[in-house]
């Protein structure tokens, strides 16, 4: 296994190809442009095809068509583009089509900015589009993890026939880090032989659709889908902790690259014997609620750190079930809370803890 220094966007594209994704439909938007560019160079070399679309709206429908004929497919975009894809994602969920969608987040709302952000957390995990459905969302905090989660995204998408989103906070796509690509024996294209539209030779014609005019049928279909979401919750929920083996006074919660800023802050405070832990959800949906609650329970104070106005904060509060007041540090617009910001706020909490102990 050779380690390669690679830009996040390109590493994600290469990981997808290694996972057997030979078809990509995409539209240019900063900060993910290297993904379509990489695919447009590489796919012809591996017998695949890159299609540049006329809009993200068209993109979300093209991957509907591609997945519908049982082919592994992916797209990527950034915040405003993902908003345009929202309707398509609802249709993909409603037609039970496995696809992978990368969102390299940038500052919002509106045209806003092109610098990194985490302000699509709520859109990805809760309010993506109309109708009852869940979008499985994975958030890497390093380029290597982005590679691993890209491969995992395809596996989850196909195992449960759901759309999966890889949610990067802009930096993941733009920074370069050494990565290793696992040796993957790529199975047959997406195991879809019992539902994909491949031409009705020797079988009854099939339908790929999200239209259910009969309410009973649609209600049953949604319930069946939510049983699959429950399976994903049981089997695919992932999180990471840092410095939580021993006791800690303050727990930091963060995802994506923000978690690494928190780790630096924890290391710095540890030099002074200050015990701070980190809880990092990797699957933002399904959210690791139980693990989060038990991590919170062991802390005296909890501080959530994000590059938005407080979106994962809601899930942290839900997980805490009122046991703690969840403090929050947030910057947006392309700004990033710094190690100093985190260290300074932890000191405020420590002072409060000591005051309570006296």
């Amino acid at each position: 296994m050779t380690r390669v220094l690679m830009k996040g966007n390109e590493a994600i594209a290469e990981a997808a190809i290694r996972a057997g994704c030979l078809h990509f439909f995409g539209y240019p938007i900063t900060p993910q442009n290297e993904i379509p560019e990489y695919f447009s160079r590489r796919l012809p070399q591996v017998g695949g095809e890159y299609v540049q679309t006329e809009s993200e709206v068209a993109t979300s429908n093209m991957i509907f068509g591609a997945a519908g004929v049982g082919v592994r497919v992916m797209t990527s975009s950034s915040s405003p583009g993902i908003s345009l894809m929202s309707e398509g994602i609802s249709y993909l969920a409603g037609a039970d089509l496995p696809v992978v969608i990368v969102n390299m987040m940038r500052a919002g709302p509106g045209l806003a900015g092109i610098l990194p952000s985490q302000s699509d957390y709520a859109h990805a995990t809760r309010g993506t589009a109309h109708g009852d459905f869940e979008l499985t969302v994975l958030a890497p905090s390093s380029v290597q993890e982005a590679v691993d989660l890209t491969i995992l995204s395809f596996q989850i998408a196909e195992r449960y026939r759901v759309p999966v989103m890889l949610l990067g906070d802009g930096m993941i796509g733009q920074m370069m880090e050494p990565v290793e690509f696992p040796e993957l024996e790529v199975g047959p294209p997406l195991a879809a032989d019992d539902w994909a539209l491949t031409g009705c030779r020797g079988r009854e014609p099939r339908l790929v659709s999200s239209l259910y005019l009969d309410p009973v049928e649609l209600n049953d279909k949604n319930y069946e889908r939510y049983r699959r979401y429950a399976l994903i919750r049981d089997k695919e929920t992932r999180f990471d902790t840092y410095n939580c083996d021993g006791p800690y006074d303050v727990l930091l919660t963060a995802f994506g690259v923000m978690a690494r800023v928190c780790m630096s802050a924890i290391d710095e405070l540890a030099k002074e014997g200050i015990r701070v832990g980190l809880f990092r959800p990797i699957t933002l949906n399904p959210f690791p609620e139980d693990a989060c609650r038990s991590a919170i329970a062991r802390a005296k104070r909890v501080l959530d750190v994000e590059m938005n106005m407080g979106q994962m904060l809601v899930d942290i509060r839900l997980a805490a079930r009122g046991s703690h007041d969840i403090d929050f540090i947030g910057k947006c617009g392309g700004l990033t809370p710094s190690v100093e910001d985190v260290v300074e706020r932890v000191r405020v909490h420590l002072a409060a803890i000591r005051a309570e102990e006296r």
Partner: protein
Amino acid sequence: MQKIFSHPCSMIEDPLHYCPGCTHGIIHRLVAESIDELGIRERAVGVSSVGCSVCTYKYFRCDMFQASHGRAPAVATGAKRCRPELILFCYQGDGDLAAIGTSEIIHAANRGEKITCIFANNAVYGMTGGQMAPTTIPGQRTSTTPAGRRVSQDGFPLPMAEMLASLRTPGYVARVSMHAPSEIIRAKEIVRRAFLHQVEDRCFSFVECLSTCPTNWGLSPAESLKWIEREMLPYYPLGELKVPDGKTGDEDEHN
């Protein structure tokens, strides 16, 4: 006695849901007959759109997609690019294709996607109760132009076939009508050519079919045929607007 006209096998036998006299049913039949004659039912994949023809997927005996409003050409693009051996056709109405879906149809045509698009133009949004569509005729009363379409407010009818024929990449663009048996016979041949165009692996074929909407036009089925002839033909001339002229220099090598 020999049966000389019967139900195409690419269509199911059940009754259609369309209103009495609505010629969607005829367009469906022409598509099904073309698929039968070209022997491509077993590799045909249709994409039905949103509008009166949303239930198209129920009527064709081949694999079908149900696309979101206006996006059928994009769904067909995705499918065809990934399984080029399939024969992809879209079936859309004028609200679906000429309004919300203009971007998708123009770019699918301009990229030269090897798909066949069947476009039923009945000058209104039928399913939702007869509102004005981009193809509504000036002066035509609809549920959203009670005083008739005013060019000053709502512009002129959108000529989709001419627009697509003006692009260099599409190979076959035609407009036909359902308003008389002779026209239906001619339309049948043109629809078959459009599908043959794709079978021969050529870029993008498109057939606009003038169709009736007796219910929302407030006319009898027979009067509706006359209405097409009198009101629609001036804005929507019939014929093959673009045909493949074979090898015409290198840039057309994929045409």
